[in-house]
């Protein structure tokens, strides 16, 4: 079963639109949603949680159509972390726990208390006095304490320092190691997603440019570095994106399948691939 399925989804607002978006996140996997600011990542997440109605297309989460009345019950199985905690700033961790106990039928107070201890979060301190790291840890503690099968994370690690980020990424790995658990995570920090994800989906100006298994994506492309003359010898269809350097040098993202087998190519990072694909699109 797929944890998330979006098929030909469209949503228009004034000068921005999500266009013909089709995306699948298989159960048991982590999918990283990548894109620049305003690419449509948060809109996609709002659409799939039915916080926003699509103009057309089909969306289902954990096998249930988001427009169906039963979807409200499916939200019990989904832990969501947004880019901020969005709890009222005068509340404290204990009060949040009480509210969530009345919200989620499978709320596990002991697990929540365990997360508060693990993250060293003060129980009676108001959120307005929390640091960003503490706020996000609390949001993650809430998302993980009601036995979710799917985590939807929208820039949940943005603005956190490396140590806290690594700690949180470790938690996500633990979560997905359990049977049938899945994650959709959007982030600007591509190195994190490269470490964490099984699938990469790249949104650019409301369109899905890439949606593929991470390892296959990394295998498909190679990085060319050479002179303009060497670059000119490449077939046009082999080049996915190009960057002209000083003194006649060229760096390019090359499709391995269309490049000469003897050509020496470096292994790209996800960040390289995404940057070159955006450049290639702008040049087209």
């Amino acid at each position, binding site marked *: 079963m797929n944890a998330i399925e979006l098929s030909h989804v469209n949503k228009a607002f004034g000068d921005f639109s999500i266009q013909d978006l089709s995306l699948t996140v298989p159960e048991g996997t982590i999918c990283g949603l990548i894109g620049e600011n305003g690419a449509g990542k948060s809109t996609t997440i709002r659409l799939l*949680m*039915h*916080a926003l109605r699509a103009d057309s297309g089909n969306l289902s989460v954990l096998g249930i159509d988001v427009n169906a009345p039963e979807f409200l*019950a499916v939200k019990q199985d989904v832990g969501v972390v947004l880019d901020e905690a969005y709890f009222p*700033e*005068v509340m404290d961790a204990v009060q949040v726990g009480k509210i969530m106990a*009345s*919200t989620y039928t499978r709320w596990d107070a002991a697990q929540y208390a365990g997360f508060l201890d693990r993250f060293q979060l003060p129980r009676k301190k108001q959120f307005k006095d929390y640091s960003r790291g503490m706020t996000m840890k609390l949001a993650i503690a809430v998302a993980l304490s009601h036995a979710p099968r799917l985590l939807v994370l929208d820039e949940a690690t943005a603005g956190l320092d490396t140590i806290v980020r690594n700690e949180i990424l470790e938690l996500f790995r633990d979560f997905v190691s359990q049977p049938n658990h899945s994650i959709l995570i959007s982030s600007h920090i591509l190195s994190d997603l490269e470490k964490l994800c099984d699938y990469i989906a790249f949104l650019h100006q409301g369109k899905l440019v890439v949606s593929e298994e991470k390892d296959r994506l990394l295998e498909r492309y190679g990085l060319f570095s050479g002179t303009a003359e060497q670059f000119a010898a490449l077939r046009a269809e082999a080049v996915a994106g190009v960057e002209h350097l000083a003194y006649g040098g060229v760096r390019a993202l090359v499709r391995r399948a269309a490049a000469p087998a003897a050509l020496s190519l470096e292994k790209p990072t996800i960040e390289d691939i995404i940057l070159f694909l955006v450049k290639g699109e702008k040049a087209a």
Partner: protein
Amino acid sequence: MKALVWKDIYVLTRQMRIFLLLLVVFAVMPGYSMTTFATVYAAMMPFTAIAYDERSKWDSLAAMMPYSVKQIVTSKYVLGYGFVAGAALISAIAKVFVRGGLILSLTSLCVGLLIMALVLPLVFRFGVEKGRMAFVLIVVVVAVGGASLATGVASAVSGTSALQLTWWLAMAAIVSNIGSIWLSVRFYSRRMA
């Protein structure tokens, strides 16, 4: 919905302690207009709770959680009903030995409910900032009218007209609140369109 009401109570009791105390003071003060003022003030509580929600962007998170639009909207009405009924009850207890005190408290309760019915759809439609002017206007008109009505009730308390007046006001409060919730649910749903 219980969770949503509790969330608002936590926020309001933390932020509005002095105002809640004032509400009790108004409710127990002698004078008919003071009782109406207390219930009108109590009717403002859902508006205040929505303002805090907007400030913390709680709605963005609530939309991701297993709350229906109907639950989110009706929780604000339930919160308001609790505060308005509480103010009317305190007032009724304080004026238990005053002739006509109970009818007066009931009239004030109805005025508070009418204000909620008129204000909340506008707030759900336009948000707290844009709805503020309409809110102030409605509160002034209904509160002044309500205070006059309460004084009228007090002077007519010996006759049957006071009971009739309160009966019609109660009917108006119930019908307007049913219509108001229906409208607010539709307005709130539009935010997701």
